[in-house]
């Protein structure tokens, strides 16, 4: 029985992603985050009379990357439109966006909910400019910073095909991973480079018509997306169960109280008075441009995931290593230096546990890891050829991590290699048995648990360097032959 009982939720997300261009969508002011307020403006950003927009080529290219890697149809001719509304952080009194003929249509986003693979269709991806930022001062005034005004955004509109807060949050994470892998945005929700509105409605299971929807705004963290949507779904179900009706409205999410509140009803719904942007002619995307973008398209996280599963990695490892481009690149480099596919599972396990564990403990990121992919590959080769046991390898890793020394050099210098030589092990085992005649007699009389004692003694004698499996075999045969 699902938590929503006889009802099901229908959710669509509108995501705004800031593109990491150097300059704004229609002017040359900087897009840098965190500058002094109102220090990154120019006459166009301020909406001063006589200024005209000139489109940033890189922003279009970033949007094309996203459109191509999500399987969208790319319009060869697309148009810009003016969307009018009054707000102090919108100096021109309109936002340049796209309406009827957006750059990208169709396509889909794939992601996992648990181990289940989901695919949600996209309605469209279009380009638009961001508004400025307003904060409310305790003095009762609102303070406007126009540094953000004009920063390029793509708006990604999903079909209403998500069915829970969890799915919505996984979808949003997939978008974040994707835009980072494509290197078109940092996808940072805290800094507002990824923002999300949700359209939420519920209906009785089996019904095909959509219920009345509400639009949730301000849900700007992964944690809140899930909570805000689940809260809204529960609110609507509660309303309908008691014979009430959902009112079409925009609701804001209050993260502190964990609840939503009505912001504006349908009767006040904006009439944006869209009109074709007279200052920008239609944008033509020619085949050679598309071919160029396609040829340099980075691997998507899902393609990377599939590649790793084919290499034999478990779901969780493949998912982890495809979650961040740096992680996947580190893995790929390790693998090619370690001799390819046969090292795949071992490499994934080492990166996932020892390496990320150590980096996390020290608050370091992957690029600043003291153990680079080549060094890790060296260590993996020493494990694969039997030179190091798992236990010794961990010790070598820890020492290389703190000193920056290469594993092969350390192992050679300190003679740390595992003793696999049968004769050498046998000599130590004989010595140990001769030194403990009483225990040997007891073992031969049936106290087979004492084998562990002998293994321990041998390991101590060899400083932990003997291959424990070989030691066990040799001890068993030596202790067995004299009985």
């Amino acid at each position, binding site marked *: 029985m699902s938590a929503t009982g006889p009802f099901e939720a229908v959710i669509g997300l509108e995501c705004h992603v800031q593109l990491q261009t150097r300059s704004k969508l229609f002017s040359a002011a900087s897009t840098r985050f965190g500058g002094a307020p109102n220090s990154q403006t120019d006459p166009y950003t301020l909406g001063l009379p006589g200024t005209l927009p000139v489109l940033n*080529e890189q922003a279009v290219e970033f949007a094309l990357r996203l459109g191509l890697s999500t399987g969208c149809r790319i319009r060869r001719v697309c148009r810009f439109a003016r969307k009018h509304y009054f707000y102090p952080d919108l100096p021109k009194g309109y936002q340049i966006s796209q309406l009827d003929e957006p750059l990208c249509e169709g396509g889909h986003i794939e992601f996992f909910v648990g181990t289940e693979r989901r695919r949600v269709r996209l309605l469209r991806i279009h380009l638009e400019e961001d508004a400025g930022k307003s904060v409310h001062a305790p003095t009762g*005034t609102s303070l406007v910073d126009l540094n953000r005004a004009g920063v390029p955004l793509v708006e990604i509109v999903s079909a209403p095909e998500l069915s829970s807060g969890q799915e919505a949050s996984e979808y949003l994470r997939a978008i974040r991973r994707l835009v980072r892998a494509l290197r078109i945005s940092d996808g940072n929700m805290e800094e507002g480079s990824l923002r999300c509105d949700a359209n939420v409605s519920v209906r009785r299971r089996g019904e095909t018509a959509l219920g009345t929807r509400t639009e949730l705004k301000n849900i*700007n963290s992964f944690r809140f997306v899930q909570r805000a949507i689940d809260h809204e779904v529960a609110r609507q179900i509660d309303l309908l169960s008691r014979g009430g009706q959902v009112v079409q409205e925009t609701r804001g999410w209050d993260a502190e109280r964990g609840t939503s509140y009505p912001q504006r009803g349908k009767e006040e719904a904006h009439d944006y008075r869209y009109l074709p942007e007279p200052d920008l002619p239609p944008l*033509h995307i020619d085949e050679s441009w598309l071919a160029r973008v396609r040829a340099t398209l980075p691997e998507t996280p899902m393609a990377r995931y599939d590649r790793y599963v084919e290499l034999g990695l478990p779901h969780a490892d493949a998912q982890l290593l495809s979650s961040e481009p740096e992680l996947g690149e580190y893995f790929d480099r390790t693998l090619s230096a370690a001799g390819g596919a046969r090292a795949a599972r071992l490499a994934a396990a080492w990166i996932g546990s020892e390496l990320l564990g150590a980096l996390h403990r020290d608050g370091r990121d992957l690029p600043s890891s003291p153990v680079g992919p080549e060094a890790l590959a060296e260590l993996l080769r020493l494990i694969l050829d039997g030179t190091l046991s798992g236990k010794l390898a961990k010790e070598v890793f820890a020492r290389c991590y703190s000193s920056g020394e290469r594993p092969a050099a350390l192992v050679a210098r300190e003679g740390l290699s595992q003793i696999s030589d049968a004769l050498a092990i046998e000599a130590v085992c004989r010595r140990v048995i001769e030194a403990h005649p009483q225990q040997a007699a007891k073992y031969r009389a049936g106290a087979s648990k004492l084998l562990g004692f002998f293994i321990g003694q041998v390991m101590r004698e060899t400083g932990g360097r003997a291959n424990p499996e070989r030691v066990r075999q040799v001890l068993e045969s030596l202790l067995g032959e004299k009985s």
Partner: protein
Amino acid sequence: MLECTPMRITAEEVRITARMARLRLEEAEVERMTLELGRILDYVASLEQVDTTGVAPLDHPGVLTCPLRPDEVGAHLPQREALRNAPLVEQEHFAVPAILVGLSAERGEG
């Protein structure tokens, strides 16, 4: 001078349009605007007499495709200059009367 066809635009539509444009109109002004806007619409409506079957819409005379610029940062206005026309400046910001009571600090407006 074109004759004004009655009801090209209603007084109510003028009121709605004025509200959306944040214009406060007196009743007499609504009356005058209804008449004058009606005349403008009538004038534009004369285009409807032309048969445009099979003629593609012309967005922009002359310019065929959208000019593009390379992604390079140019000159900024000094902050002092940027804020020069602000009715009120507080903490390096444009200060305006509080926006939407009850709305949290930032909108997700797209």
